[in-house]
């Protein structure tokens, strides 16, 4: 018998546990069949590249869990019996719970491509995937990565460190075309090429071809070209891992269906993180947020509910960040992949092609809608405040120095941005200068 049981020890499950512990004395059990302890999923690439060891990517030392009385079970849940509030496990006796949190994460997308089950073909999501990738790439000299998103570019970077030649197939006409605008996508495309990745835009996978031993030997594109390879990375996104709820009474669509309080249709059963499909009101389809940050924020909201303060999940002002080889990316607010009618955009790019900045704002009154920055760090809290205060693009550019988060002595570009803005602006603006030592 356990009071609160959490299935999944990723960032969502772990954050629920930590925050419930912070505010209450409840018995907490976390079950995972992936790893004994919480580790940082986005850091998997650094294990493969040799930047870190497994111990380094565990955010808490191993004594942390016992000290905070968080019981860890390294086991696999086979079945949830919501009527009797009971879990069936692979290796241990049945476990009864009072409340249950599902934080089962995602699974890699396999879109039924011919040959997707050949040896040497895989996605990258879990620790087990990484071990498989280590195995699969031992003999590989050429690899093809399919899917122009975040995991794809990270996989390309990983493979290059092992001296493997990478061909990167992207369905859209630019990198990450369903998120990035043309200029940004092309900037990253050029940077990827600079790292000697063979980037194939507007190219779709037709089939993966195997040899007699069942190993991959090549892929064929829709235009009929064959690219020889000994490894194929399938990185065309992820989908919620809902295997566990399929034969239970917990409602599920694309993900585990929850309301904005992260409650499922079954009392005392909740879901958060990648696996949750959040339905607002009576909507047919909900939204799925397979992101580290949203997983963490959902978990924080849910933890409040679990300690008696029923709290709605409010994701606040959107933000995200990533790193493409050497170029960092931040986005605050909302920048749609394709321009919309109601908005104008300001875009500045450094001639070297390693930095750029986009501000999207309302056409009628200039209010900021969102920003993308590449190769320059900007402060999250400052942009969040500007967006909440409905600041205009002119205000934002005038005060841009305040938001710069680059290390000391780094070259600053705000002056150039303002100059570029003034070239077309009706009323020119002047950049507010930085204080010397932050004081004078």
């Amino acid at each position, binding site marked *: 018998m356990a009071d609160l049981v959490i299935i999944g020890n990723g960032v969502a499950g772990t954050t629920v546990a930590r925050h419930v512990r912070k505010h209450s004395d409840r018995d907490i059990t976390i079950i995972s069949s992936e790893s004994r302890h919480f580790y940082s999923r986005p850091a998997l690439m650094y294990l493969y590249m*040799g930047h870190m060891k497994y111990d*380094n990517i565990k955010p808490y030392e191993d004594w942390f869990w016992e000290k905070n009385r968080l019981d860890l079970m*390294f086991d696999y849940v086979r079945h949830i019996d919501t009527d009797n509030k009971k879990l069936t496990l692979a290796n241990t006796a049945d476990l009864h719970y009072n409340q249950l949190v599902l934080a089962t994460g995602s699974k890699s997308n396999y879109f039924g491509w011919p040959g997707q089950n050949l040896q040497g073909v895989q996605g990258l999501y879990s620790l087990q995937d990484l071990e498989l990738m280590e195995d699969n790439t031992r003999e590989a000299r050429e690899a093809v990565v399919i899917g122009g998103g975040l995991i794809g570019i990270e996989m390309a970077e990983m493979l290059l460190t092992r001296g493997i030649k990478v061909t990167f197939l992207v369905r859209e006409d630019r990198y990450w075309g369903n998120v990035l605008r043309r200029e940004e996508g092309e900037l990253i495309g050029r940077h990827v090429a600079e790292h000697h990745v063979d980037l194939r835009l507007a190219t779709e996978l037709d089939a993966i071809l195997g040899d007699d031993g069942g190993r991959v030997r090549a892929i064929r594109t829709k235009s009929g070209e064959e690219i020889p390879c000994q490894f194929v990375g399938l990185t065309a996104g992820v989908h919620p891992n809902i295997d566990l709820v399929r034969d239970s009474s917990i409602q599920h669509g694309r993900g585990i269906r929850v309301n904005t309080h992260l409650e499922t249709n079954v009392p005392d059963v909740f879901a958060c993180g990648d696996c949750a499909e959040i339905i607002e009101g009576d909507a047919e389809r909900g939204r799925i947020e397979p992101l580290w940050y949203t997983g963490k924020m959902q978990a924080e909201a849910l933890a409040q509910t679990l300690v008696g303060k029923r709290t709605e999940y409010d994701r606040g002002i959107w933000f995200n960040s990533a790193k493409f080889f050497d170029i960092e990316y931040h986005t605050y607010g909302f920048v749609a992949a394709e321009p919309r009618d109601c908005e104008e955009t300001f875009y500045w790019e450094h001639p070297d092609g390693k930095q750029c900045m986009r501000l999207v704002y309302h056409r009628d009154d200039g209010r900021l809608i969102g920003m993308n920055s590449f190769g320059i760090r900007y402060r999250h809290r400052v942009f969040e405040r500007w967006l909440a205060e409905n600041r205009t693009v002119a205000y934002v550019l005038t005060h841009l120095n305040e938001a710069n988060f680059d290390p000391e002595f780094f070259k600053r570009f705000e002056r150039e941005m303002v100059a570029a803005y003034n070239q077309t602006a009706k009323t020119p603006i002047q950049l507010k200068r930085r204080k010397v030592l932050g004081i004078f």
Partner: protein
Amino acid sequence: MRHLDLSLQLIPERAHATLDGLQKLGLGGVSIGLLLLVVSVMSGSTVQAGTGFGLVVFGALAYIVQTRNDGPPGIKNNFIMFSSIMSRGYLAWMAAVFMTGFYIILYFYPQHLKPLVVLVNPLQVWLSGSSAWDANGNMSQWFLYGFIYTVTILVMGVRALIKYRHSRYQILRTLSVMFFQLAFAFTIPNVLAKFNNGLYFEWANIWPLRYYELFPYSVEGLISSGGLGKFMLFWAVFSILILTPVLTYFFGKRWYCSWVCGCGGLAETLGDPFRQNSDKSLRAWKVERWMIHSVLVLVVVTTGLMWANHLYGGEILGTWSGRFSSGYGFLIHSIFAGVIGTGFYPVMGSRVWCRFGCPMAAVLGILQRFFSRFRITTNGGQCISCGNCSTYCEMGIDVRWYAQRGENIVRASCVGCGMCSAVCPRGVLNLENGPMNNRTGFQV
């Protein structure tokens, strides 16, 4: 079910061959050079020593210069954790034994370094006006040590400059430690000694790091050495009482530890490949706080006792006075700072001395923790808990612990090297000076 936590030590079977011809040649030169140096210690041959030293320096430079071809500028920590030398493999232990051995010879058997002393003596005579051999024929190895130390910082400084060429903070900081070592720690003290009857004073080496600087005999020596000597004494007192608190208030302890200090300079250059080996555990932090503050207390008590003894005409300590200061010098300075602090770089990381032993770091740390505008700022909620910051923190600070809860980092031990900010893949960390109130920026 497999026990993944144990099996997940990924080691690629086939290391990606990244060495070009010049690099192989350079590494060959370094190996032969080291061998020749060892042989020269036994044979006493100056030719062997000179050839060996030259091969090590130019071999290392040849290797280092070619690392600029490793692709576009950016963080490249690839393969560090698979590397034997950088990740506590057998090469690391061999290097640790070699470096420890060097320090043991340097401190306790300097006569074996005679061939090298002979080699650099002309430079010593030219620069400082005095020979390594005094009138009685006793050899001093300390100019040689200063020379090797400086060359090491310069050569490995080039390595750091190339590796971190994408970061202007890292470039300027590296140039700064190279400059302060070459000018203030090596050249200027020697040249001043030449024109002032051998009056030797290290301007950038502040008490209590240079523990004997404010001992009675040093102070009296300076007072009796004319105007320059008096200025040196003024500087010694001024630098710890005024300069240190003021600069630390504005910039944190980094102005000294990672921009000026010679020990820091060696750690940031020679020690940089080993920075990831520092212990990040909570236990290590506890040990650190006890040890470093104990050393500070010890040096203050030693200095105080020496003065009390001096004022009472030697009645308090009697014959123990000399033993007390030389005891501190032996245990703390030779064994701790030298043999363990530097010799164990490859095993315990590059800042063992700075973290666990340096009394100056303890003073700066107290100032930084309570009276400074410096902090490492966390950029909103964007931490992905990856651990690069903690892994590459040479002071063993678990930076991620703070970053992942959106808390700024205000820690006594942070030397402000800026590496956490450089390796962060989400641009979360930044070294900043700002208002004192709510420095941690943490809302509970």
